[in-house]
């Protein structure tokens, strides 16, 4: 059992490795199995789950880091996805503190709504920064399939993350900030 900075370092490293793994699966595995041309956004699912399980600060930090990595791999509008994912992760964490967010229908609802919000804000943000694309047509074409794909995969990823955090909590004890939301479920 570890505490203090060692535990923080190990947790940060594990989160980083997990993020890279998610992106690799998203860009190279699930891209081979698109749903009507749409690939799932695993980082978005994970950011929502981290927010729900660990609180809004963790959700925002995870969303920002994951979004930034995804943006770098996209090569365009670097930072836009990071800001939106940070906001979605924080919102999931904040809502998760107020309602019974561990129930499967709630997790599903968070992911379906998160996918729609993410797409809308990304399209609008891209348009605001001068990238001309028909935002609403794009959202209308992408949203139903991303909501369905992300919703389905959240049913696998969320329980996995919950177990992973239980394990981490048991092995690595880290003093938590009082703002870090619903923890140790």
């Amino acid at each position, binding site marked *: 059992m570890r505490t203090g900075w060692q535990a923080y370092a190990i947790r940060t490293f594990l989160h980083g490795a997990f993020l890279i793994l998610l992106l690799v699966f998203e860009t*190279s595995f699930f891209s081979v199995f698109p749903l009507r*041309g749409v690939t799932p956004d695993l980082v978005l699912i994970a950011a929502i789950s981290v927010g729900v399980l660990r609180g809004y600060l963790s959700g925002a930090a995870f969303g920002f880091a994951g979004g930034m990595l995804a943006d770098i*791999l996209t090569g365009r509008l670097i930072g836009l996805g990071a800001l939106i994912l940070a906001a979605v992760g924080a919102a999931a964490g904040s809502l998760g503190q107020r309602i019974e967010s561990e129930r499967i229908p709630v997790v599903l609802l968070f992911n379906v709504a998160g996918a729609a919000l993410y797409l809308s804000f*990304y399209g609008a943000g891209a348009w605001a920064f001068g990238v001309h694309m028909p935002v609403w047509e794009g959202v209308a074409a992408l949203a139903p399939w991303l909501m369905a794909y992300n919703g389905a995969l959240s049913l696998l990823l969320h329980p996995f993350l919950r177990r992973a955090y239980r394990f981490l909590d048991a092995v690595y004890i880290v003093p938590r900030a009082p703002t870090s939301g619903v923890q140790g479920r």
Partner: protein
Amino acid sequence: MRHRGFVVILIVALLLIVSGVIFRTATYREGLTLPEQAVYEVVAPLQRAANRVASSLRSALDSLKSWRTLNEENARLREEVQALRMERDRLLEAGRQNEQLRQLLELVEPAGGELLAAEVIARSPSNWLGSITISRGRVHGVAPGMAVVAPEGAVGKVRNVTERTAEVVLITDSRSAVGGRVRDRGHLVLVEGTSDPTEERATVRLLDWEADLRVGDVVVASELSWIFPKGLPIGVVEQVHERESGLAPYGTLRPFVDLARLEWVMVVLAEPIEAPWWEETP
């Protein structure tokens, strides 16, 4: 209180910095920064491994699906091979004659060069943009601006390269525009990517207001294309839209290459020429 003020300042500063980065990367940039190259290089081997597993899985699933129709498909393919052999012989003869005539007229060979095979290892994480990552980069002689093709036709253009990977913008991406020609009737067209990411389609616009576009028209790269070799097949017109007042007619083009299922592509290792404005990647 002081702590809260510090956090607010920190968040505002972060937002300003990130907004600056978004603004800087919203338009076309020359090359990649070092952190970007590092990320690409680190994830590339993992992406290659994941992609191979996924491709094998899909092949297995496809085999299962096609098990019932295998005999019929075999017979159809045999007939097709026979027809293609005859077509190949005819084309070889035509090519030989063409070469002789070229030499007689002292024409310069259109843009084309050595082909380098590359594996598709990843796709863009953004559903909004259509780009792929291939397993060849600077050390293999790949440079921004080079054409990427498949046996069936045009795929896209190299946008960025790292040491061992390259990002290719697909012809269906909203950043893409290619000079083309209707093969049978010679009308010049511009093939533009669309922003509907769920459809692997492009928009084809006639440059001549008087000309017409028909469903089934085959579009090939024209002499206006500085990226693709002239005559390279691009796609077939699937739908023609009503002529709007004052605008040239336009249509929807289905690329010959199945861009959603690409596994291998070829990079044309010709010296990239600075693209004209209509083929610039924004």
